[in-house]
């Protein structure tokens, strides 16, 4: 049987752990409000931008081929025409730290699945977050090339991070002639739940139902092609910014939930140990009384 002292020590340890977890929960709670606001504020830009590109699509696809030989930049971003099928890109966004429940595990599981599905292809990987980077580094597979990594940006994501990521994406998309780029991340659904999202970010998958604009409906200044060349990086960066913020908020929410249930569990453990402590103490007292009574009786007889 454990001694009273052991149990008391145990209770003390658990209680201080609980304290830490509660503090962590409070920290995420305080940060999440800011993260959520930033996320909501960033949503319209990316959304409206996509709508605009959608409006422009007929014009963009009508850019004559020879205008930007040898390759039609525009169609490169909209339809997968010239990319090689055996080179693809993958963006994986995880958190930097554990203690977030299944937040990272979910992303990594589907990453692994994606890698298995695309066996034999060269995969160019862009990782955000320590957990994802470490995991992918450990895989040591020949067809994986980690070309971009960024760690320690949470919980202070700024537009600069999105810019760097966007530039890297564009560079490899064009230079390595990737056929497409897929993104895996956690979307912020609510405080209580995150959504795993796996989507293709390049070439642009736009709404099928194009609005009824005819070609060359737009007057452009400077030319459409010049604008388009500037627009694409902006769009990608805006989108990446939104995704990073979503992931950040989701990460904080996951931390909060994990810490909440952990401190609840700790509370339960403390209660159970308290009961045990009382039982042991009572047993000790009973034993001592028995000893005394027995001793007294022995003396009397």
């Amino acid at each position, binding site marked *: 049987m454990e001694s009273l002292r052991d149990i008391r020590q145990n209770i003390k340890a658990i209680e201080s752990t609980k304290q830490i977890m509660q503090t962590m929960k409070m920290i995420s709670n305080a940060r999440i409000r800011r993260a959520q606001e930033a996320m909501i504020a960033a949503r319209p830009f990316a959304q409206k931008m996509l709508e605009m590109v959608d409006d422009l699509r007929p014009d963009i696809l009508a850019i004559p081929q020879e205008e930007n030989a040898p390759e039609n930049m525009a169609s490169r971003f909209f339809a997968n025409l010239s990319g090689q099928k055996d080179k693809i890109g993958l963006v994986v966004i995880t958190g930097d730290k554990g203690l977030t429940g299944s937040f990272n595990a979910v992303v990594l599981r589907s990453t692994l699945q994606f890698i298995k599905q695309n066996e034999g292809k060269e995969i160019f990987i862009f990782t955000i977050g320590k957990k994802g980077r470490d995991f992918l580094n450990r895989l040591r597979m020949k067809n994986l090339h980690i070309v971009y990594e960024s760690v320690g940006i949470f919980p202070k994501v700024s537009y600069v991070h999105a810019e760097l990521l966007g530039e890297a994406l564009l560079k490899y998309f064009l230079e390595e002639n990737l056929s497409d780029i897929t993104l895996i991340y956690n979307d912020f659904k609510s405080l209580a739940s995150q959504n795993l999202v796996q989507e293709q970010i390049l070439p642009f998958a736009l709404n099928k139902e194009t609005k009824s604009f005819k070609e060359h409906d737009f007057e452009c200044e*400077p030319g459409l092609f010049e604008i388009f060349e500037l627009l694409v990086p902006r769009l990608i960066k805006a989108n990446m910014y939104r995704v990073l913020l979503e992931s950040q908020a989701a990460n904080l929410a996951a931390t909060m939930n994990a810490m909440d249930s952990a401190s609840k569990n700790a509370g339960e453990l403390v209660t159970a140990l308290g009961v045990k402590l009382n039982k042991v103490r009572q047993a000790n007292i009973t034993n001592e009384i028995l000893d005394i009574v027995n001793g007294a009786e022995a003396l009397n007889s």
Partner: protein
Amino acid sequence: MADKKLIFNLVTPQKQLVTDLPVDMVVLPAFLGEMGILPGHIQTLVQLGMGPLRYKQNGQTEVFAVLGGFAEVVNDTVNVFAEGADLAGQIDEEEEKQRIKALKDSLSKKDADIDFELAELEIKQALTRMKVKKRRF
């Protein structure tokens, strides 16, 4: 035509500053010069430079300092996607001056580990904000 209005949106990556506001006129700081937009304008896509963006609503003019971006005019809706935008009234000249000074100081140090292009861009942005603040419309 007097009762026809433009719907004006101004968004930056960080924030949506103006949402679906009915206005009478918008003047955009287009890359190749200022460009006034009135209701009934042809569908247009322009690249924006750094400069003042104005809109008129019921005779009142509101001014923003815009730091580049794009604008789209579709069906009497003006969507402005700006890299950054500040309401002219909220610009603090003193703060901008100090920012420029700090940037210039760090640029003049030879061994400084900074991104020159970025610093130059920031100086340009601060100057734009100051210019917009000083200008009277």
